[in-house]
């Protein structure tokens, strides 16, 4: 059998347990050996499920281990990594969770997965000194409205239909998690201005304001998007800068 066909048959059998052990393989009895080939099948499945477990520890806590393994197992069977850089693998898992029928009754599960995925992206994002608040002080007040801000490479904005950020926060550390005080939609900013990843719940309506700035709008244009009550765009801008959301302004 040609090299290409041998490897293709081997790879297909690894990915699909219904396929027979490849006929070209040999154990010590001179024929294909199910338990020997199972070592490879197991290595592939366990390794990839482990990568999903490592990226989504809170999702794992929110369901039980057996449920998580089954869900992650279904994901890795459906979507193999496109690159050998496994730190990027599993970025599509939140969408999979959202479609995964047995998980439908936990409405916030896919949202928590989105937050955990953004956390990992921020963790591995490029280093850059965050914009300091002093930079605003140097601007002529009449020019403030025309300012544009470049987002920090680690900054991610998220909008949830559930209090996913509060649920996530309650599951950090080993203590018994408490349910959120208020059950409401949340918007969050994930940043990593220095070594540590930070997750902040945005003030109500702050997502559209920040998203406009991230997309290159001027401060005046973004302020029109701000719909929060009781918080002015200026203090929200200060909050974003203090969280390390930006890299520079112009």
């Amino acid at each position, binding site marked *: 059998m040609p090299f290409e066909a041998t490897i293709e048959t081997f790879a297909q059998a690894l990915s699909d347990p219904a396929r027979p052990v490849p006929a070209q393989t040999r154990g010590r009895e001179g024929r294909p050996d199910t338990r020997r080939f199972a070592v490879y099948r197991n290595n592939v499945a366990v390794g990839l499920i482990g990568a999903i477990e490592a990226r989504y520890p809170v999702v794992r806590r929110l369901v039980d281990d057996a449920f998580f393994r089954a869900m992650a197992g279904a994901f890795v069977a459906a979507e193999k*990594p496109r690159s050998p850089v496994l730190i990027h693998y599993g970025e599509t898992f939140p969408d999979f969770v959202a479609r995964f029928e047995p998980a439908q009754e936990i409405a916030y599960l896919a949202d928590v997965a989105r937050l955990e995925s953004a956390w990992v992206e921020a963790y591995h994002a490029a280093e850059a000194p965050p914009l300091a608040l002093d930079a605003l002080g140097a601007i002529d007040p009449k020019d403030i409205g025309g300012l544009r801000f470049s987002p920090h490479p680690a900054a991610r904005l998220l909008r949830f239909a559930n209090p996913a950020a509060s649920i996530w926060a309650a599951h950090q550390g080993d203590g018994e998690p408490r349910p959120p005080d208020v059950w409401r939609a949340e918007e969050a900013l994930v940043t990593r201005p220095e070594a540590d990843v930070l997750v902040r719940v945005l003030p109500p309506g702050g997502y559209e304001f920040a998203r406009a700035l991230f997309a290159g709008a001027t401060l005046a244009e973004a302020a029109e998007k701000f719909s929060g009550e009781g918080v002015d765009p200026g203090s929200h801008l200060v909050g974003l800068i203090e969280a390390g959301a930006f890299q520079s302004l112009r």
Partner: protein
Amino acid sequence: MSVSPPTPMRVTAPLPDRGGVGLKADHVEQILAERPDLGFFEVHAENYMGDGGPAHRRLEAIRALYPLSLHGVGLSIGSPKPLDKDHLKRLAALVQRYEPGLFSEHLAWSSHNQGFLNDLLPLPYTKRTLATVCDHIDQTQEALGRRMLLENPSTYVLFAQSTISETDFVAEIGRRTGCGLLLDVNNVIVSTTNHGLDPIAYLDAYPLRHVEEIHLAGYADAQDDAGRPLLIDAHDSPVRDHVWALYAETIRRVGPKPTLIEWDNDVPVWPVLLAEARRAEATMARVLAASEQKALRHAV
């Protein structure tokens, strides 16, 4: 083109003929605080292919104090498919950034049409596959601008169409490409046990003069369909006694070499891992002393 100078205050790159361990994030704080006397650290290249963040900060801090061995687990050198050019570029960038004393990869494949399968998978040993592997090693050495080491695999199956022994296959790769070799002594025990071969005969046939690094690890026990022992390269436990014995025999033949303890799953607390590396150093010292005594007796 300007070449950026090496980061000041970094120790030199070459790996000493001493013990080293695979770097684990959980150990870094203690290592930086205690600065143990150790030959080197090794990392999996793919874990440092993010743009920035704590992983790079930790590795920079370690690299300032210790020589580094960069070990790839995703290049898929043994695949019939062309090498992933983007991956070669990422590897080249890491080599440039961290100035590792060694770069090594595996005689195995891990990616195919289905994607990256995250395991070191076996290939048939034939003239055709030999040509492909040599071509891939040539491309890798060209892209990195340096020699690489090739590691012998742990295997659980053989292929009906193989016409060349693993040792002859590796020897011919070394001859054609000029690459060095990473001898994984645990893999020798695992593969020879799994295929009913003699590990000493494997060493006899192996091109030992090209060995520049040694790996040691723990394996797990299983059985095949016929109930014969099937060893699994698990990296989850201490190095076994007969692996230590084969290591001592290897050192007797090749002299002291940089020796890595690989313990990637169920990772122990730092002192346990360090003690394994110390045992490798003690073994090298013991074998060296024995051969010097023997030489002395012959001289007298």
